[in-house]
């Protein structure tokens, strides 16, 4: 039985032709191949070495305006043919949906960006486990050397990989791109009497060289600092105070915005931001851009999952909601154009998402941000499932530091913070200048005028 994986363009052509033969009126497909590896070191010893190869093809077929999708990692002609025939048959029995279909053919005339996004590093193809083990070991050793209370570890892990994505549709479009990534983590454990605390730090990059020659030092020291500062944590009193979200937590708040302005939530009435386009959500110094064209950016891509050329989109401009995140289908549902935000897994239909979804930095240093708070809470970790982008309710468990007279006083845990997302966004009163460019969704540390903190 012939395997079609060797020639991606021919494979996709076969897939599209098979769909057509089976009765599909249109189709598009993705073919992804990748290789990846990871190592973990714990307390100086290699704990895990893992390597993988993956590939798969995903296809969406249309019969008029009915559709169905399929995916397989079995690339034999027989398997692909049987699955596609079955999928076209499935499409015939799903509901007619006048909004469904491929993007307009004319949109594919738009050229892909000519910026060199530089998302692929050849050096990572040959990167070997021994070097990774050495770097992970060094990172963990540096973190544990920072303090005698750092007695244990969940280990240090390094992972790397590269992949290729091929896209084709029945309009004759064929596009391809390659990318790579590498990351380094460590999670030390601090012990003091009966108390145990862990935290972690990490770095990641598209290119090996961007990890930096001091990656082990930088990650190890920061992981140690973050873990040690948790020791001696207390439960705060229940109160209402200003709350500062440290940059990683501010980034997850920004992530909830991306979810709430995704077309797939909006057209289903499943977002607190339905019908809010053009309204003021935040103070005028808040700006958010979704920019897929940042060279070596973690969320960068030249074309989206429907094959359309990507472009930057202003999301919040001067505090005003300027755009949603849309693909072709959700755009049509809302009477708007796609923002070229389609994403999809192999087996799923596209839905809109963010690329590099970044909030602009403010002017303050992190210390200045803290310095402006008499009594308040710095949040360094949140937990739970209490961010509801349908209703806008927000209630999460937190770990952090209590702020007194503009300085960090002591660690807190076993506490919660609560408010609503509209109130939180509207009452952001300051931004720091510490946005982390290694994150696809990234915001600087930010201060919210008041939230309810629950503790004792």
């Amino acid at each position, binding site marked *: 039985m012939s395997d079609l994986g060797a020639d991606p363009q021919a494979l996709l052509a076969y897939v599209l032709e098979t769909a057509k033969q089976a009765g599909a009126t249109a189709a598009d497909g993705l073919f992804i191949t990748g290789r990846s590896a990871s190592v973990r070191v714990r307390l100086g*010893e*290699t*704990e*895990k*070495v*893992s*390597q*993988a*190869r993956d*590939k*798969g093809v995903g296809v969406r077929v249309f019969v008029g305006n009915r559709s*169905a999708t*399929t*995916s397989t*990692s079995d690339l034999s002609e027989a398997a692909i043919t049987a*699955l596609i025939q*079955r*999928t076209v048959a*499935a499409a015939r*029995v*799903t*509901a*007619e*949906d006048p909004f469904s279909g491929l993007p307009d053919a004319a949109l594919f005339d738009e050229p892909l960006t000519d910026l060199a996004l530089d998302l692929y590093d050849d050096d990572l193809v040959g990167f070997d486990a021994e070097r990774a083990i050495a770097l992970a070991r060094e990172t963990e050793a540096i973190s544990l050397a920072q303090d005698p209370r750092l007695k*244990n570890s*969940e280990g240090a892990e390094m992972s790397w990989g590269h992949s290729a994505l091929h896209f084709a549709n029945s309009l004759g479009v064929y596009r391809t791109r390659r990318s790579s990534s590498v990351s380094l983590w460590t999670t030390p*454990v601090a012990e003091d009497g009966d108390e*145990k*605390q*862990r935290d972690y730090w990490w770095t990641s990059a598209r290119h090996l060289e961007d990890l930096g020659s001091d990656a082990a030092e930088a990650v190890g020291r920061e992981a140690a600092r973050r873990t040690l500062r948790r020791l001696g944590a207390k439960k705060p009193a*229940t*109160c209402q105070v200003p709350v500062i979200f440290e940059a990683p937590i501010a980034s997850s708040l920004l992530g909830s915005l991306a979810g709430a302005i995704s077309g797939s939530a909006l057209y*289903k*009435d*499943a977002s607190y931001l339905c019908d809010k386009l053009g309204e003021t959500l935040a103070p005028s110094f808040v700006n958010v851009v979704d920019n897929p064209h940042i060279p070596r950016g973690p969320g960068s891509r030249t074309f989206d999952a429907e094959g359309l050329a990507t472009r930057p989109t202003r999301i919040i401009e001067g505090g005003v909601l300027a755009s949603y995140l849309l693909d072709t289908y959700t755009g049509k549902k809302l009477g708007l154009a796609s923002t070229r935000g389609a994403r999809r897994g*192999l*087996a799923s*239909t596209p839905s809109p998402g963010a690329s590099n979804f970044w909030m602009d930095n403010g002017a303050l240093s992190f210390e200045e941000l803290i310095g402006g708070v008499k009594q308040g809470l710095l949040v360094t970790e949140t*937990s*739970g*499932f*209490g961010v*509801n982008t*349908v*209703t806008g309710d*927000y*209630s*999460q*468990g937190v*770990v952090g530091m209590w702020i007194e007279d503009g300085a960090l006083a002591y660690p807190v*845990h*076993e*506490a*919660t913070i*609560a408010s*609503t997302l509209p109130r939180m966004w509207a009452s952001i009163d300051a931004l720091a200048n510490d946005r982390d460019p290694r994150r696809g969704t990234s915001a600087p540390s930010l201060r919210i005028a008041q939230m*309810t903190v*629950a*503790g*004792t």
Partner: protein
Amino acid sequence: MTETSTPRTGVDAALTRFGVDEGALSKTLEALLGHRLDDGDLYLEHVEAESIALDEGLVKKAARSIHQGVGVRAVAGDKTGYAHSDEIDGARLLEAAQAARAIAQSGGPSRAIAVAGARTGHDLYPVVADATEEPLETKLDLLSRIDVAARAYDPRIKQVQASFVSERKTVVMVDRDGRITVDVRPLARLSVACIAVDGQNRQVGSWGGGGRHAYAWFLEDDRWQAFVTEAARQAVLKLDAIDSPAGTMDVVLGPGWPGILLHEAVGHGLEGDFNRKGTSAFTGLIGKEVASPLVTVIDDGTLPGRRGSLNVDDEGTPTTRTVLIENGVLRGYMQDRMNARLMGMAPTGNGRRESYASIPMPRMTNTFMLAGQDDPEEILKGVKRGIYAVSFGGGQVDITSGKFTFSGSEAYLIEDGKVTAPVKGATFIGNGPDVLKRVAAVGHDLALDTGIGTCGKAGQSVPVGVGMPTIRVNNLTVGGVAV
């Protein structure tokens, strides 16, 4: 626990599916298992999955996928070498075996291992035709009926999303001695979410259920209708919810799904790996009192048809019923093969993995608290001011510090022993080794959840079950907006 022999046809059929024979498996094992390895195995997996979804009254999504692959593992001491590939053939198997065994730096001679003999565990899901084989039209029709039923519940139900997801996973495991274990695992879940809108007030209610059942299970006893009614009822109820109070108060947890408290507060902390490494808040506490004497907690992978159940775990070990906490005293951990060996304990059938691309870890199956003596009504009557929580959106735990969080999706005020206003935005937070000591009452109404749970650990998701009777916990921190 019983072991019976699998009919040879089961093994042969499974191997045919993967296009490999016993000879290729023998060669791979030989390449893998030098004499300095403590353990090693092959894990072949084939998953056929189907997902259909309805919104706006239309079934717009129908997806079917086939994924397969092989994972090859070598274990030496606490070191693991792992290689996986989604191509399954003799050459790839050998390549993976060589990559995996590199971890052990084993120069030892390979030994010949005959792949023969078969073993199996329980027969907990004897499903003849699984839900993926049910005609698509039948399932599409069910989703359409769900839409109608939900909208009929209340005119304020403006959106209904329903999905039916099913899979059949076939696994073939070959252990270090060449013994083959085959398990064919059906799994299906029906989910319903309703959005109720009243002016600017928008609320969501979700419910669902499933397990390792055939499609007919969803129709029996009008189960699907019960799921729809529950999702719609929650959405409409929340239109009238007030802000949750914040502070420390007594909390009554309802039966069933609130058992997620056990999963988060104690379950993860009792997984063998964290305890071997000394990074769990429960490390070294076996034989110690970690809960009220009213509390007995079990992990049981042998319950027929349950979402968290398995005939054998993902290392071929038959699942068991493990007593974790007995009358308040910590009795045992959940173990996979490696952690059990390193801790000098027996495997408990809790070695699970998300897929062939993942290394097994100790994981929960169905985790629940045994029933007590108290009448649930009396438990509520005994609370002066507190919260009655009957459903949750999800939970999370920091295994090292023991701090857990779970997020209420249906909760009420308790005032002078009476359940009064529904509240929204309630988050519950506490310390695992401490919270069960403050269990003041345990009801006689143990219930298991309806089969909706998925547990995430180290990036791997596996289906699980939880259960609990009504319980009262004193002095739990409740997070909300109202002070």
